[in-house]
């Protein structure tokens, strides 16, 4: 049994409310020295709020935070850092155009005769990276020349070096990393663990939770579900605790898929012939059929999003042509696509999907209204009818249709974007990473919905970096590698084959 003294951090009975939401209710959280502690939960569970309370972004209404035996209340993230609590966010806030060394030592550059001692600075940066993280890279190159993973390491190194951090918070650091990069990050985390740093790790990837963590704390709807030893908690139970319902939903789905894959595809509704765009995607052929989900697999940067945008018609191709229902497409614009009956849920929900200050209702009717134009404005009555239909159909959690979209959680925002497109009544639905950064429960809901829509006659293109998800949802799978379509599979195919196609290696 551990005594209270083992804990480097204790958060006791933390409460925090936002207008209309109890974000945290009497949540306890503990962190040991040299521990990797995963914080998991669906979107809107209160993970971010807990971190914000700890790092001084938000003030708790009640509760105590005890760091190293002393009660603290961070006033700001800077203050938290001074206390020994460092945070590395999903979006890296470093200067991409400066060198690695500059980024690590910015504001604390070693000086010689009132100017920066570059030699000393580079040496210091190399030393810091080696000592703290055990990685060796050329620190004189600009940060942007490195992968996101390395950039994240640099952010960690900087965070750790400023003060001797007791606690490191990693907020979804792996969401944009590939498998190798993730391993690199894990190596660093293990090293820090040995050095005695307590790490709070937030992730949506259950596999990673089991790979790296010692303990898991599960939150749901602002309430602590429990803290568990990772070794003693089976995965299925963890997911059940996170979503608070049975996993029968997920099983049910595979049977739907098998049934619908028996369908014989009729003529292609969308046909791409040697379609390509310089610097974006090499020419490819692709067909989308009604009543079928085509999965698009490939690594980040393999040209998945580019393929989606060119098929949708937002990007104009240089070569080849698209045929929609047998007719050649000439109008390359989102509006043209809507008029044809194609919909695209973009990958970058924040930048290209949501209009956060508008209400849920206005967000849902936006594409329909764009198609109707300025002067055939939907009456308020019609707007509510459309919005309410989809809020009910997609089970969108919002108090009213008049709620600003920014008040909703990520998963619900994604559903609103989906609703916006379903409201246009499309024949082809392109979903670019529709499940990124959203909780397990909503993920399953969206996968089920895609299959149901295909069942009802829609042609779907499903893009995801989670191969398992692509396999589970698609009837046919195309694989992209280095901005080129390299393979296409239909019928029975195993995960291994596709992995090799993605990696470009022989079986």
């Amino acid at each position: 049994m551990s005594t209270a003294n083992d804990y480097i951090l204790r958060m006791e009975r933390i409460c925090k409310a936002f207008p209309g939401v109890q974000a945290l209710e009497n949540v306890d959280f503990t962190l040991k020295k040299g521990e990797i502690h995963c914080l998991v939960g669906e979107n809107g569970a209160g993970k971010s709020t807990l971190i914000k309370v700890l790092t001084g972004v938000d003030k708790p209404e009640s509760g105590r935070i005890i760091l190293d035996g002393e009660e603290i209340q961070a006033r700001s993230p800077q203050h938290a850092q001074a206390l020994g609590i460092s945070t590395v966010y999903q979006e890296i806030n470093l200067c991409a155009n400066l060198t690695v060394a500059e980024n690590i030592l910015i504001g604390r550059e070693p000086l010689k005769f009132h100017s920066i001692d570059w030699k000393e600075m580079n040496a210091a940066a190399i030393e810091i990276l080696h000592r703290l993280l055990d990685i060796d890279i050329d620190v004189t190159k600009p940060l942007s020349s490195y992968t996101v993973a390395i950039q994240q390491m640099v952010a960690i190194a900087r965070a750790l070096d400023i003060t001797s951090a007791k606690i490191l918070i990693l907020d979804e650091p792996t969401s944009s990393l590939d498998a190798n990069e993730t391993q690199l990050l894990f190596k660093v985390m293990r090293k820090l663990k040995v050095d005695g740093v307590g790490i709070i790790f937030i992730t949506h990837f259950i596999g990673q939770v089991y790979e790296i963590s010692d303990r898991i704390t599960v939150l749901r709807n602002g309430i602590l579900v429990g803290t568990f030893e990772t070794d003693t908690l089976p995965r299925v139970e963890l997911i059940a605790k996170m979503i608070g319902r049975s996993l029968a939903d997920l099983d049910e789905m595979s049977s739907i898929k098998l049934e619908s894959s028996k369908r014989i595809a009729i003529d292609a509704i969308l046909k791409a012939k040697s379609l390509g765009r310089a610097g974006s995607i090499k020419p490819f052929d692709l067909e989308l059929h009604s009543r079928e989900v085509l999965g698009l697999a490939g690594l980040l940067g393999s040209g998945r999003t580019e393929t989606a945008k060119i098929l949708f018609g937002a990007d104009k191709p240089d070569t080849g042509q698209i045929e929609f229902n047998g007719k050649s497409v000439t109008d390359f614009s989102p509006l043209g696509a809507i008029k044809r009956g194609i919909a695209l849920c973009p990958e970058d929900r924040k930048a290209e999907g949501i209009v956060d200050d508008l209400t849920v209702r206005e967000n849902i009717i936006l594409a329909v209204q764009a198609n109707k134009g300025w002067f055939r404005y939907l009456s308020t009555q019609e707007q509510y009818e459309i919005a309410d239909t989809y809020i009910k159909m997609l089970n969108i959690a919002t108090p009213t249709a008049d709620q600003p979209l920014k008040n909703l959680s990520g998963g619900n925002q994604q559903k609103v974007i989906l609703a916006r497109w379903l409201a246009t009544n499309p024949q082809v639905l392109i979903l670019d990473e529709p499940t990124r950064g959203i909780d397990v429960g909503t993920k399953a809901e969206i996968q089920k919905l895609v299959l149901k829509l295909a069942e009802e006659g829609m042609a779907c293109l499903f893009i995801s970096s989670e191969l398992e998800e692509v396999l589970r949802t698609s009837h046919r799978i195309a694989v992209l590698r280095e901005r080129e379509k390299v393979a296409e599979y239909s019928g029975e195919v195993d995960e291994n084959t596709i992995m090799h196609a993605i990696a470009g290696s022989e079986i």
Partner: protein
Amino acid sequence: MMHKKTPLTWRKITENRLFFPLVALFLILLFDFIFIPGFFAIENRDGNLYGSLIDIMRNGSTVSLLAIGMTLVIATGGIDLSVGAVMAISASVAGILMNPSALKSEVFFVTDPTYTFQPLWIVIGVALIVALFCGMWNGFLVAFMKIQPMVATLVLMIAGRGIAQLITNGLRVQITYKPFSYIGQGWIILPFSLYIVVFVLIVTSLLTRKTAFGLFIESVGINFRSSFFSGIKEKNIKFTVYALCGLCAGIAGLVACSNVKTSDANNIGLFNELDAILAVVIGGTSMSGGRFSLVASIVGALVMQAVTQSMYALGVPPFALQAIKAVVVIIVIMLFSEQFKGFVRNLGAKKKEVKP
């Protein structure tokens, strides 16, 4: 799902867009009520009403007109610095069409109040079309050439007064044509220019709220990439708001030059673009774009004018006026900061007992 109106609470009231602009206006009028005797007196002369309050509305009409167009531009995340110059251009066009003597480089004073070179509808029509073209030029630069709004409209802000001078041959044009002076100086119980403001406000409100135009403006202002992917032609939206802003500036220019009976390319609309921008800010529209309220902007314009009018009434010398106005504006803007707004909103909330 039910869409019932929630009961009126302090929070609901303070969250209304009009709340803070109206409070600001009220405070200034309260100040006037206490310190300036007779400020609220309204005189009835032959059925027409006169007084300081009426003057605020009448003198505020040019900035109000500018604020209407400016609100739409700012709601898309842009800004139009050229409206003052466009006012001058519109005034010069109108002036020269009524009194072309300046073109002959010989200034003769027309004293005949019935004389005009072109009929009134051509004078107004051409002036407004020219102003519309000025706005379209701005819109073209911003929407299609992707030039930053501040830079794009700065071009016309500087060049506009030069163009206005070219039109009038560098001279000030006297306007004596009686029917034209009615625009700025006529009264039908209330000043005629007030009816113009109300008319433009109603037309613009209908245009933005009874069509999808307003929704598209807000959507583009909040997130133009999301709007683009949703099929909104964001370039067309931007182009249109700048064109409308130019048109509003043109109307304001006619009111202004009718009021002073002169087309003075150097002084008409001078610094009015800044007043209009401030009016929009006081009206609560974010400079980064998004939600807008035309009525709130008009209240903002009245706040600006009420400050000026109060200073006149207090006998503040004209040279000190700008400095004092700036101080008042700073106070008003600080009252509008999110911190202060949050403080006021929470006044109504019940204090939670904090137990030790």
